[in-house]
């Protein structure tokens, strides 16, 4: 007799089928405390990898809840270029847990940052939002317009957080830039896409485990106060850091950062009910898949990797094996019809003008 006797297979490395065939790797378990149904509103946020999750959810019939939709007069390709639908609202990548907390607090009026708008680096006449600097490739035409859009955006963020049933948050980074005047966190350093880098005005931050967990804890507690039955799925992005400001190799910073995020996520799952960890990070980086899920740049995750992750997500977190029906907003359909109808009317009128002229 010994303490490991009769433990489940998944607790033993050699019993993992993925050792022989990486595609069979399935580290999800034990059984999650909840399943996602097709009418559950899922809100997504996080780093680059979270975009893959969101895209998959949108394309597979889940109700990926998009509160900030493009107006129906905006064609899809333009909407996509302007980052509508990538996440539940146009907040762009939320890399750190501090950034998540800040987004929530801003949406509910608990924090109003000093910085409002930056001049774009690419078009001096354009303005960009310091808190979602790449949300609109051509920027905003004025600070006033940016603030109007920001106000609208934050109302959609509130809508998403108040109405979601499931929140999927992908923790991505620990490094960030902080405004010394009020502690506001910027997703990318000023001077890259816009604004000016002034070492006297911003400081580099690399959040440790306690800071990362504390921000995550406060975020979850706030969300649960406005949405008590919220279920939460945390993941860690397997995508390595693009760059580090720490004076060390970026690979070392990546390991440090992912370790911190992984521990913070684990702490949250231990301390909150209905808060689970989904092992995206482990699936992509595991020795079982022998690096095959990273693209040639050793950083981007391949479509096969995303597919592996999301197929396990479907398998373990839904009862319907992903056979869900896409949901479309009726109002949107009606508006699309209006736009098409107006085009037809103008065409008819122009034809009649021609007849009148003959």
């Amino acid at each position: 007799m010994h303490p490991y006797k009769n433990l489940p297979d998944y607790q033993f490395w050699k019993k993992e089928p993925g050792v022989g065939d990486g595609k069979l790797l399935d580290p999800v378990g034990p059984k999650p405390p909840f399943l996602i149904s097709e009418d559950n509103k899922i809100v997504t946020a996080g780093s680059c990898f979270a975009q893959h999750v969101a895209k998959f959810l949108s394309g597979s019939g889940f109700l990926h809840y998009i509160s900030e939709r493009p107006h129906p007069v905006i064609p899809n390709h333009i909407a996509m270029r302007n980052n509508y639908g990538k996440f539940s609202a146009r907040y762009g990548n939320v890399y750190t847990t501090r950034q998540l907390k800040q987004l929530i607090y801003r949406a509910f009026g608990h924090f109003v940052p000093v910085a409002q708008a930056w001049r774009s680096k690419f078009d001096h006449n354009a303005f960009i939002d310091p808190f979602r600097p790449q949300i609109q490739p051509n920027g905003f035409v004025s600070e006033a317009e940016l603030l109007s859009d920001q106000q609208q955006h934050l109302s959609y963020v509130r809508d998403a957080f108040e109405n979601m049933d499931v929140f999927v948050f992908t923790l991505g980074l620990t490094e960030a830039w902080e405004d010394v005047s009020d502690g506001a966190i910027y997703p990318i350093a000023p001077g890259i896409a816009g604004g000016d880098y002034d070492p006297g005005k911003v400081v580099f931050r690399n959040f440790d485990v306690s800071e990362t967990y504390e921000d995550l804890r406060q975020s979850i507690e706030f969300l649960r106060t406005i949405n008590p039955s919220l279920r939460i799925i945390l993941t860690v992005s397997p995508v390595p850091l693009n760059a580090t400001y720490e004076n060390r190799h970026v690979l070392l910073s990546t390991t440090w950062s992912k370790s911190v995020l992984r521990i913070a996520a684990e702490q949250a799952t231990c301390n909150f009910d209905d808060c689970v960890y989904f092992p995206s990070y482990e699936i992509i980086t595991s020795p079982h898949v022998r690096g095959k899920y990273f693209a040639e740049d050793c950083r981007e995750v391949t479509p096969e990797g995303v597919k592996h992750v999301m197929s396990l997500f479907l398998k373990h977190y839904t009862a319907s094996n992903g056979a869900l029906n896409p949901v479309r907003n009726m109002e949107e359909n009606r508006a699309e019809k209006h736009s098409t109808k107006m085009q037809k009317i103008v065409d008819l009128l122009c034809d009649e003008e021609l007849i009148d002229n003959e």
Partner: protein
Amino acid sequence: MKSKALVVGHSHVNCIQKAVNLSSSKDFEVLNIRQLQKAKVLNKSSDGLVDRTLLRNPSPDVICISLSGNEHNILGLVEDPNPFSVGDFDLGSVPHDSSRWLIPRNIMLEVFTDKLTIFFNQAKSLCNSFPDAKKMYLNPPPPISDWMHITRHPKFFKEVIGRGPAPDDLKLELYKIQTDVLKSFASDLGAHFVDAPPAAIDDRGFLRSEFYNDDPTHGNIEYGKLVVKLIEEILEKSDASL
């Protein structure tokens, strides 16, 4: 000797054609692309849309293009089922009403560019058909604000008139954005951009009532006369400017 002008476009050239017909001018020839399509005189060859052998003046001195141009009316003649505003430089949004769905200005600019690019390509083909001619791009008339006129002459808009008018400031803003896109196209074509005749525009920027056609979007023969006069003035003023 007066310059020979070829005016080519869609429905907004009809008022110009009426004005030219009335004056019996031989210096202007007006072609409606839809008319060409109907008469099957569209040249499908790679160098352009118009078969110049069918023209009265096969080698015009200037080609004036006015393709499409009702996109602002498609979006803003009547209130949208999802009432929207567009981003504004000073106010943030026009109309300045936070209950409306804000579409940032640069995104609306992309929407118009997307809708109008097909006509820009047609305009390029037309310019290729007449490489030696000077080029002008005619802005369509501004929107009509008089809802009474629109409801009296709704034509095919009858079925959507019940939605009521879009706000006046939105109509003007959409027209401005469309104008910005067309100006940029004109610049790319090397064409002189000819804005709507100032005499036809009221102090708010709308089409003056005496220039309304009997429909919600077009100018009448009097408007056509003003455009012809404007083209003649530009031609007389400075050849070098074209």
